[in-house]
């Protein structure tokens, strides 16, 4: 056996070091060891056809990831020691971080749980290992986000109880139900939902423009964790594309199932991203690109190239893609209007755009902003300046599937709300769109279970009968400090103080510290 050793090529080495450790069991039945692999109807005839999406052995993983972490934490330390929060463009910016920490970070954790689970479920060892690496990466993201935001939490309000709020606050049920939906599905749907539809098709829309935005707004900590996380994401995206191709190549019966999942998860992802659209257009004081522009580059252009590539498997672009493309000029404005009105029940501040920001919106949305939204915003701004800041005290009708209030409009008429309803087993259910209604019709027994925040408040399951009690006691929102109008808030006062500008009122600093 004394042969001169030669350097293995990456692919061979990787096969020996991963899937070759697996074996065909004989003491236990395969279907008992992998009980969840069949119930979704996906047919896998040969796991050995699996192409490893990346070939990273654990030693290399530890080495590269430790290097990334070392860089990242050096920046976190420097950021905190130098009070880096004072160098951001404007304190309004911090509200996008509040939304991120309560809306996105818990999803990273849910992804960790989901991938750890499917990392055990597949009988193909190559797929298991790829999923496990994503699981530990997702744990990384959820934890580095806690650490990146830790310093902001010490200097601004509204970041203090994100995970608690993710389980409870009305609009946070939008991201939460999205991931609960994926995690409660079978392993193949989970991967189609998260690895493919979310990571591959849509995640660029969340991270790339938003993190570029963070960079543009002087937020060194966020841009650093964001880009550092994205370097893992490139691996996850490769997994997402490999998963889809593998399943489609295994059996032609898989094609209609995958198509249905792509339709479903594209639509759910698109709805979820309305929150990101609002962040980009309204919550970044220095703007990088508009939501519509980001959608064009990262969905229409990249997604277009992707679905063209998948044509050969008999896969078409997601159903209602046309509705989503048309909505790019509306969703961010409609979402911000809603959050502005319901700011008494959010964990962040809202405000009306300043004049030059309105001008930017007009320029970026020439066909929609002035025509449909500017007048309303100017009216609210005027009301606020005259001492009548508008808050809407009614509770909105939520969509049974995406759980966003029914605020979006019809594709062909932006003055008409899009609202669908159907009866199922004697009960009436409401939806924001045909996309969500279709999802319900395919799996009514799943979506009737939804924990709809407004219903839950009415049923008395949220610690009180009135919204003020729910917000303070159940949501752990400190009213007027964590939320409501930005101007005049303790965060705003503190920012003026930091910048050496004259505070509007003198005592607010003490109040916020109390």
């Amino acid at each position, binding site marked *: 056996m004394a042969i001169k050793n030669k350097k293995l090529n990456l692919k061979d080495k990787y096969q020996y070091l991963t899937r070759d450790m697996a074996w065909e069991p004989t003491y236990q039945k395969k279907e008992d060891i992998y009980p969840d692999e069949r119930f979704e109807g996906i047919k896998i005839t040969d796991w050995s056809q699996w192409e490893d999406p*990346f070939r990273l052995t654990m030693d290399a993983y530890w080495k590269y990831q430790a290097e990334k972490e070392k860089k990242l934490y050096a920046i976190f330390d420097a950021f905190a020691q130098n009070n880096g929060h004072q160098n951001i463009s404007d304190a309004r910016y911090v509200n996008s971080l509040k939304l991120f920490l309560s809306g996105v970070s818990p999803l990273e954790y849910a992804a960790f749980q989901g991938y750890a689970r499917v990392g055990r479920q597949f009988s193909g060892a190559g797929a298991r290992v790829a999923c496990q690496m994503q699981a530990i990466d997702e744990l990384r993201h959820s934890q580095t986000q806690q650490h990146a935001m830790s310093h902001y939490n010490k200097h601004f309000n509204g970041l203090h109880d994100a995970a608690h709020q993710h389980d409870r606050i009305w609009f946070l049920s939008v991201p939460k139900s999205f991931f609960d939906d994926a995690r409660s599905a079978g392993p193949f749907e989970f991967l189609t939902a998260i690895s493919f539809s979310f990571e591959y098709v849509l995640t660029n829309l969340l991270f790339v423009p938003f*993190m*570029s935005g963070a960079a543009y707004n002087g937020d060194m900590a966020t841009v650093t964790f964001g880009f550092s996380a994205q*370097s893992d994401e490139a691996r996850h995206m490769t997994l997402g594309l490999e998963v889809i191709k593998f399943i489609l190549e295994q059996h032609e019966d898989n094609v209609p199932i995958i198509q249905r999942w792509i339709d479903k998860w594209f639509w759910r992802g698109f709805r979820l991203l309305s929150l990101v659209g609002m962040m980009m257009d309204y919550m970044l004081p220095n703007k990088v690109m508009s939501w519509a522009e980001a959608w064009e580059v990262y969905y229409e252009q990249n997604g277009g190239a992707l679905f063209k590539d998948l044509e050969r498997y008999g896969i078409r672009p997601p159903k209602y893609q046309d509705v989503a493309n048309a909505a790019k000029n509306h969703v961010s404005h409609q979402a911000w209007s809603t959050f502005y009105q319901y700011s008494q029940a959010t964990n962040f501040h809202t405000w009306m755009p300043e004049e030059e920001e309105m001008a930017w919106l007009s320029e970026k949305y020439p066909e929609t902003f002035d025509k449909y939204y500017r007048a309303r915003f100017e009216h609210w701004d005027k009301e606020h300046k005259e001492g009548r800041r508008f808050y809407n005290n009614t509770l909105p009708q939520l969509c049974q599937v995406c759980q966003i209030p029914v605020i979006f409009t019809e594709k062909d008429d932006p003055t008409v709300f899009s609202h669908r309803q159907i009866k199922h087993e004697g009960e009436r259910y409401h939806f924001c769109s045909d996309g969500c209604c279709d999802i319900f019709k395919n799996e009514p027994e799943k979506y009737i279970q939804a924990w709809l925040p407004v219903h839950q408040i009415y049923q008395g399951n949220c610690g009180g009968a009135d919204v003020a009690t729910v917000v303070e006691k159940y949501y752990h929102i400190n009213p007027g400090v964590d939320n409501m109008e930005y101007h005049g808030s303790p965060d705003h006062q503190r920012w003026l103080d930091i910048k050496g500008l004259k505070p509007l009122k003198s005592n607010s600093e003490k109040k916020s510290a109390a």
Partner: protein
Amino acid sequence: MSQKVFIAFQDNDNARYLVDAVMQDNPEAEVQYQPAMIRIEAEKRLVINRETMEETLGREWDVQEMLIDVISIGGNVDEDDDHFILQWN
């Protein structure tokens, strides 16, 4: 219809060498500088060669080192010891 593949790097010192090498091997590619990131896109195919990178850097270079600086990609990945290729079929 145009089918662009792309790769985005963090805008740091490593990226400058990567951009250099990528442009040598893919003269038709387009480099876009955005806040904190560099995005390179090309029609259908983009290749990063180990050999070119090693010449650019003047040292040995492992294709996987790139993972530290990549932010995002679009396209099917074909990776081995000598290259990293993104392409659409």
